């Protein structure tokens, strides 16, 4: 991670042209090739940025960041008028974002008792790896069919999209071609329910206290 505080002007050319006139800015060059230009106002978003993969060319008073975008090239030219501070530090391996408590606990509880989502469901592996990220729970159903379970605190449309991406990748493997998907959450939003049903995915609301046996189920006149 390289941090530069400098009085600089920044010109972006590519899909459009943008120019930031000379001012003091923080330049962030990440090891993965991301480049961000920050001001001391305007919130958390950078004024300009480039996503990896990039090529960074360090000149005497100019830094050029290039990236191929189809047939064209995106180019960020940072012209340094005055270098005020520079720091470079190895951050090491990323520990990853810790899931919030409810989501993590829900995953643990459902891993122990996947059958609460569907009769006969049994766990094969937690964090089943795919090219687009790990599937929370990979299970087999009562008929031995594969079932990918994505667990969220709140089930939103984004969660359905995430599960759909996993399934798309998983189903490329002939052995998992028939893999089904279940979105499990403490609360599944109505739009997510509709999208699940439209895509042939199942959804289930899971009550952590209920699974843990900390609370008995509500009494109802019939099983709804």
């Amino acid at each position, binding site marked *: 991670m390289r941090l530069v505080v400098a009085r600089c002007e920044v010109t972006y050319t590519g899909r459009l042209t943008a120019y930031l006139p000379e001012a003091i800015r923080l330049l962030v060059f990440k090891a993965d090739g991301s480049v961000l230009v920050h001001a001391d106002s305007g919130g958390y978003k950078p004024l300009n940025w480039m996503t990896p993969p990039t090529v960074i060319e360090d000149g005497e008073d100019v830094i050029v960041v290039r990236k191929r975008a189809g047939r064209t090239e995106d180019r960020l030219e940072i012209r340094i008028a005055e270098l005020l501070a520079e720091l470079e530090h190895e951050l090491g391996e990323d520990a990853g974002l810790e899931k919030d408590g409810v989501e993590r606990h829900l995953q643990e509880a459902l891993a122990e008792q996947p059958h609460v989502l569907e009769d006969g469901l049994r766990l094969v592996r937690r964090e089943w790896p795919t090219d687009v990220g790990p599937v929370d729970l990979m299970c087999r159903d009562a008929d031995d069919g594969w079932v990918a379970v994505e667990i969220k605190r709140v089930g939103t449309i984004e969660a359905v999209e995430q599960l759909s991406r996993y399934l798309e990748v998983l189903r490329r493997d002939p052995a998992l071609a028939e893999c089904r998907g279940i979105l499990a959450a403490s609360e599944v939003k*109505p739009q997510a329910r509709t999208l699940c049903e439209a895509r042939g995915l199942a959804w289930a609301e899971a009550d952590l206290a209920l699974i843990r046996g900390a609370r*008995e189920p*509500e*009494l109802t*006149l*019939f099983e*709804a």
Partner: protein
Amino acid sequence: MRARDGLLELEATDMELSLRTTVPASVEGEGAIVVPARLLGDVVRLLPASEVTIAHRSEDGVASIDSGSYSGRLNVFAAEDFPRLPAIDVPLHDIESASLLDTVQRVARAASRDESRPVLTGILVRFEGSRLTMAATDSYRMAVKETELPSAGPELEAIIPARALDELGRIAAGNETVQLGVSENHVIFGAGDAWLTTRRIDGQFPNVAQLKPETFDVELELNRGEILEVVRRAAVMAQRNTPLRLRFSEGELTISAQSQDVGETRESLAVAYAGEALEIGFNAEFLREGLESVTSDAVQLKLINPLRPGLLSSEGDAFWYLIMPIRLAG
């Protein structure tokens, strides 16, 4: 809005239920537009004069609204884009309005508002000869009302969205009869100049008769007004779904509620209870609504135990309200 033959025809739909009606109008040229309903309603409700002129030129995307000193313009949409409403081309039966609406009103509150279980958002409506039965349930309570009509209705058993029947209450109030027509997918109600069409809900409604327990261990007659007042007062303290506690002891019923960090309430009334003390919890709102749905002065309360459903009913009224308890801690 379609202007023709001295009438302004109004149609509205949310694709589940639709309403149409006409109002007399002085029409200078025929035409149709689609306007944002809520916006138009808000404007019209606040207009100063008793007459309003709505003008639209086919080449314009706006309608002008003039009334007395008021003058406004409203962006409109093309009438061709408006969905076609179900046709009213089925045999119609006259149903006594008061009986129909009373039956709806007695059961509607027990219907679920949870759209994830569509069947439970509806009211089961069954006509058998001159007997009308309606039932609604959200799985925590069930309300059932049988009503004898002055004349036979159509042969019908359908699950009709509760909110459609709620809407019917508004449009049919003051009419002596409601016209009822049934098609394969829709049910049509006519009241005066207004027509309400609603989609039927597909699915299996819970077995009403099977859910009602045949026998109870406790049967009490209570003064409805008295217990309703106590329940309403206690319900104030039953916040965040904390239960109302009903404790029956020799000759006395004590109703209490306690919400952490809020407060508690306790009130007793004399009842003809004999036997071992019994404590049972109910959702305050569900219990209050059940008591409100009983219309006689005396209400029958029947119980089995703290984990089995309780029944509210009244003598001589074919209405019952089954309510599931809430488990009480400690």
